[in-house]
């Protein structure tokens, strides 16, 4: 399905404008990000020392499949194509390979095999070229605490060869836009978590990259800071930037992303628009009944209820999928009562990326 490209069309080259009769042929659009057969295997010794270390994928110590010989496959044959100007989400639980994918695309992790190309530059062959074209917002804010807020931005710009006057002007504009201008001279440890996250976004933007990577940007933020961050991200997207964000919040992917890739255990499970993915969620609304004890006869009775497409019992929890939303709840309760089972709790989830994820993996996302 075609997605909306918000980026302004490239200007015709000067030569085309000045040579009479020449026909301007727009350049072939290249994908912002393309990965082919991307694979990353960590050896156990690395995984052990890296366990819990920030900046190093957490997933290798949890969730990811461990192979005999002490190897952990963090990423297995990942093929992705992300178009220019797209807001793309990588959705999956811890251990899915999201951080590894971001690590490879930002030249910070070397893939075991396969290729990743960012705006035409290969992460392995042309890492410095890639770094010029990307901005990275890390999982945990890591500002340079020896410098104040403004210096963090001005120096980061200098690391990209940007002249001080230009950098200073950009830093002021970004801090203003992100609502932390009054903190410009503050030490970074005087900022709140949300403010540090904004500083990280400013830092990722100071060299004006076309592609922004955000790794779980809203983890640890309070609800208001999270909403504010969404607003900022929407605005960046509206400006035509390519945004790639990892998250394990379904709601976040649903709200923000034009397309979402669902990954688990290093593999791509599904990739589509949130709406199309939700439409693929099985049997509509998911209803969980927690009973005082499991009873297969209740499950059998529930399956017979009109509007219930399926019902399975797992422990004390009876999970039913309903085509008629919550309408069937009364009938479910009656079925439980008829078999003298007490209902301890009811959980109802409308068709969502969450129910799709559960149906794809058999596991909860968080």
């Amino acid at each position: 399905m075609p997605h909306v490209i918000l980026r302004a069309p490239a200007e015709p080259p000067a030569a085309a404008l000045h040579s009479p009769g020449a026909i301007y042929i727009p350049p072939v659009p290249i994908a912002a990000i393309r990965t082919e057969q991307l694979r990353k295997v960590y050896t156990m010794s690395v995984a052990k020392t890296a366990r819990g270390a920030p900046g190093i994928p957490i997933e290798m110590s949890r969730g990811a499949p461990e192979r005999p010989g002490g190897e952990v496959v963090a990423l297995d044959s990942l093929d992705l194509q992300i178009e220019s100007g797209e807001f793309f989400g990588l959705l999956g639980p811890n251990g899915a390979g999201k951080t590894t994918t971001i690590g490879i695309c930002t030249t910070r992790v070397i893939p075991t095999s396969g290729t990743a190309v960012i705006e035409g530059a290969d992460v392995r062959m042309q890492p410095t070229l890639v770094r010029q074209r990307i901005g990275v917002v890390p999982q945990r804010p890591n500002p340079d605490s020896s410098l104040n807020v403004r210096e963090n931005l001005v120096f980061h710009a200098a690391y990209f060869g940007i002249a001080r006057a230009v950098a200073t002007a950009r830093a002021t504009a970004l801090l203003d836009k992100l609502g932390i201008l009054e903190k410009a001279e503050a030490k970074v440890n005087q900022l709140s978590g949300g403010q540090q996250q904004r500083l990280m976004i400013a830092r990722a933007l100071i060299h004006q990259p076309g592609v922004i990577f955000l790794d779980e940007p809203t983890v640890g933020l309070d609800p208001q800071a999270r909403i504010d961050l969404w607003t900022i991200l929407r605005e960046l997207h509206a400006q035509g930037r390519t945004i790639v964000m990892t998250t394990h919040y379904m709601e976040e992917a649903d709200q923000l992303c034009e397309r979402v890739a669902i990954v688990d255990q290093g593999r791509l499970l599904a990739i589509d628009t949130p709406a199309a993915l939700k439409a693929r969620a099985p049997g509509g609304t998911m209803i969980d009944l927690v009973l005082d004890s499991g009873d297969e006869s209740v499950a059998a009775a529930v399956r017979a209820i009109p509007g219930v497409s399926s019902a399975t019992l797992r422990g004390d929890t009876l999970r039913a999928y309903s085509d008629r939303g919550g309408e069937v709840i009364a009938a479910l309760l009656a079925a439980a009562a008829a078999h003298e089972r007490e209902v301890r709790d009811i959980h109802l989830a409308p068709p969502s990326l969450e129910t799709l994820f559960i149906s794809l993996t058999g596991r909860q996302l968080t």
Partner: protein
Amino acid sequence: MTPPPTDVAQRATAGRIFLALLRRDIRVARRELPYFLLRTTLQPLLFIVVFGLLLPRMGFVGESYKAALLPGVIAVSLAFSSVQSVALPMVADFGWTREIEDRLLAPISIELIALEKIVSGVIQGLIAALFVLPLARLIMGPIVGLTVAHFALVIVVTLLGATAFSMLGLLMGALVNPQQIGLMFSVVVAPMIFFGCAYYPWQNLSIFPAMKYAVLLNPLVYVSEGMRGVLTPAMPHMDLRAVSGALIVIIAIFWTLGMRSFTKRAMG
């Protein structure tokens, strides 16, 4: 916010980025200068007070010992301020803060990022040595045979020594976990100082031949002996060609090993 660029306007040269990285380290070092000097030069200065002032006055050691001590103390200040300037921030960076990430994202090769750390370590080593030299002379009083006549050679030995120990800082900074940093200094650095010929000339170790040759593995020996050769050449000292050769070999080894560890840590 500014619109995305149609092209990356900044085709910055690696040199410019390198200087920006260096400027950052110098700004931070300048802010922390008093703490830095206290941390790296207090111990050598205390040593000078006891062994260069008190003991000679008490008559336990001869006046001539001062000439053997001074170059060694300069060597210790130079070496350990270089090693600390590189290793300490790096241990914290790789251990938990990950603050170095913003520099690892710079569009420059990882070797140049590491090399910038070395240059910054050399500069800080020079500052510590320049701080200790006049103070030591002030505390100890006149030192027989002290000369700055071989100024060019002083520069050569100083630069080689500071470079070797900055490279050691790179290796230690990339290898050592934050929990082990205290252990590292008491188990590796302290013996290195005491068996680094800083407080006695190498030639005089002939009284213990086994030790005399074992200490040749200690890089500090060459800095101490080199300093003696250029500052107090009347004292027994190693041939300066041997000193330079050894330091160049040490630099090559530490750079190779340090770069390997640094890359491993930086690339997750």
